[in-house]
């Protein structure tokens, strides 16, 4: 038992740190460190820089052009990126659909889709949730009917994150109504430029346009876009959900945001307030404990003794912590978190923010935005159901 990273791992971290420092554009890291709005161009610029280096798919094995890092190396890479203020990689292509294509796609599909994902050229979206299918994902109704060498898709997906930029979307579609709901689902890749695809924005409580509804009206999809076998899509989707499970805890980002919370608390004069400071101290312990939990899972994955039954806890705890730091940041600003001035959340705004601190502008917005974290990816209540199965059978 040993807490330290190996000398090789520490060297690896140094190398990553140096590379990120040299290659992460400072206008982007400035936005991330201050929670200012990131444009499509910001996100894709960083994705392409990573792609050029071969690190956009940093979790990929070597045979598909990835670096072939182990779980600890992946973690160190993610940590260095997060602490330096890199935007989160938009996960739908490189983290979500790519591993499914690698595991269940045919060689032609791999050759066709993986390069565009690895380079950051093609923007992917996720088509899982539907208006009637949230936690109960297996109830999806979007219908794909086979007609010759194509599928005709009809239905609606929702909560499609950044779908307004999407060029391709991977969807769970119903190809059969026989048997259990899980057995009639297929995994289909759909070109979002296809006739009959309509994307409609959903404006969230923070005023932002982050998610969308996607409508499919007699959309023709070539049958060659089906991943694996028809009606086996649920298995593939589960593979996807089990992938990168430490990622969802987002502990690296939590460490960065804890630093930011302390900066805000000092600036706003509550750092010396015992009651407030104690709340930060509690969060600090929460973050350290989450990091230990993550390190335990990583170490088990690295050593191959993947018998830990604690991965389900990561999502619950990680999301609770995200909500807590955003809440404390907002409370630190006090009355100056009330003004909601959207232009002030963009980089370079020259206006006069009430109270004089423009850095307070996005705090309420972030707090509102992060309420999603305990809901998406399987609500925390669903996660508790899963954990309780481990405890109680």
């Amino acid at each position, binding site marked *: *038992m040993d807490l330290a*990273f190996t000398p090789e791992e520490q060297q690896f971290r140094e190398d990553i740190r140096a590379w990120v420092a040299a290659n992460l554009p400072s206008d982007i890291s400035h936005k991330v460190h201050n929670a200012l709005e990131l444009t499509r161009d910001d996100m894709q610029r960083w994705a392409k820089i990573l792609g050029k280096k071969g690190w956009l798919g940093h979790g990929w094995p070597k045979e598909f052009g990835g670096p072939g890092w182990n779980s600890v190396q992946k973690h160190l890479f993610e940590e260095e990126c997060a602490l330096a203020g890199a935007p989160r990689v938009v996960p739908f292509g490189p983290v979500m659909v790519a591993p499914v294509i690698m595991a269940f796609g045919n060689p032609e599909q791999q050759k066709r889709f993986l390069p565009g994902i690895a380079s950051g050229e093609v923007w992917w979206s996720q088509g899982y949730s539907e208006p009637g299918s949230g936690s109960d994902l297996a109830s999806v109704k979007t219908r794909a009917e086979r007609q010759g060498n194509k599928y005709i898709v009809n239905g609606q997906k929702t909560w499609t994150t950044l779908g307004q930029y999407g060029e391709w979307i991977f969807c769970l579609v119903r190809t059969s109504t026989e048997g259990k709901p899980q057995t009639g689902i297929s995994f289909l890749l759909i070109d979002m430029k296809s006739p009959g695809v309509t994307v409609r924005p959903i404006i969230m409580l923070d005023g932002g346009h982050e998610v969308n509804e996607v409508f499919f009206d007699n959309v023709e999809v070539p049958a060659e876009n089906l991943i694996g076998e028809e009606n086996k899509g649920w298995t593939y989707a589960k593979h996807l959900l089990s992938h990168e499970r430490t990622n969802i805890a987002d502990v690296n980002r939590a460490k960065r945001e*804890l630093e930011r919370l*302390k900066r805000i608390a000092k600036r706003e004069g509550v750092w010396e307030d015992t009651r407030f*400071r*104690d709340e930060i101290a509690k969060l600090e312990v929460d973050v*350290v404990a989450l*990091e230990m939990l993550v390190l335990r899972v990583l170490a*088990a994955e690295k050593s191959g003794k993947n018998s830990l039954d604690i991965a389900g806890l990561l999502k619950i705890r990680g999301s609770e912590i995200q909500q807590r730091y955003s809440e404390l940041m907002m409370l630190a600003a006090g009355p100056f978190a009330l003004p909601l001035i959207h232009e002030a959340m963009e980089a370079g705004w020259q206006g006069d923010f009430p109270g004089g601190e423009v850095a307070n502008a996005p705090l309420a917005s972030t707090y509102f935005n992060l309420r999603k974290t305990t809901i998406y990816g399987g609500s925390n209540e669903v996660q508790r159901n899963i954990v309780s199965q481990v405890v109680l059978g």
Partner: protein
Amino acid sequence: MDFDFSDDQVQLGDAVRKWVDKGYTFERRRATEKAGGFDRAAWNELAELGLCGLYVPEDDGGLGMGPVEGMVVMEELGRGIVLEPLAQSLIAGGVLAGYADATTKAAWLPKIASGEALVVLAYQERGARYALGTCEAKATQAPGGYVLNATKSVVPVGDQADAFIVPAKINSQLALFLVERQSAGVTTRGYGTQDGSRAAEVVLKNAPATLITQDGLTALEHAVDIGIAATCAEAVGVMDKTMALTAEYLNTRKQFGVAISSFQALRHRAADMKMQLELARSMSYYASLKLNAPAPERRAAMARAKYQLGQSMRFVGQQSVQLHGGIGVTDEYIGSHYFKKLTQLEMTFGDSLHQLGEVASRMQDTAGVFA
């Protein structure tokens, strides 16, 4: 980075677990509690297993082991809610080996390892609560050494221990001393504590004392940190068993014609208990793996760990009682004894509020497992 136990560590844990399962039954524990809360025979059995000398160097008759072994052992003792305070031997072994002179080491370490001498930390005072630097006890030089005047409170097994490690001030400088219970000027008043174990008020009136170190605060902080890491590990064992008892009960108890583990409100509570248990286990690892770090890093780590453990102990203990319903609040049922143990451990070596203050006063710009 590696959180697997070595084969030797697994074997050590197995040996202790076997003793707890076979040699430390609930009936024996209950009898010990009735008889005052400490059983020297059980203590000698721990010594025979080598556990009293876990932190005593091999040259002094001990096993010369480290914090991870300490953690493994304490977790197993926690699982059996063992009353005999092995953490005190870890503290005494660690502190004397680290700070005492050769003569004192030679006189005491072999006896600590063999179990012949039960040496306990007597540091708490009425006016100090959990603060370590606050100390009314006074030491004055006398022919052949020092004499101490002090009142130390809630000293584990204070009326049956063979010697005490006592912080006292020489002028304004905190120093650490060893005082034998049988010496002139030592009086003790023993009593039972929350969890059924034993403690005592220890009064020293011109009691002869051997100086361990003039750098008393450094050594006392180290002593308490050994105690915190041991307490964290012990608590994990207690909580682990509490969780298992609770899960078993939920799956067995029937109401409305079904096992109550079928009710989602109770399932979610069990999931929350599992969360607290695993956060606690993670931070117990953290505490033990930081126990040999430089003092400032070590102190900060212990405060963080003990805060988390305190939160977890409170939650797991209280929820276990609640999920058991009526049987959970009876003396007859074993679960209530686990709850009382958790309550006492939470208040040992600094409760959660105290530790939160320690964390808050030590916060830096950045924070994480490695900072």
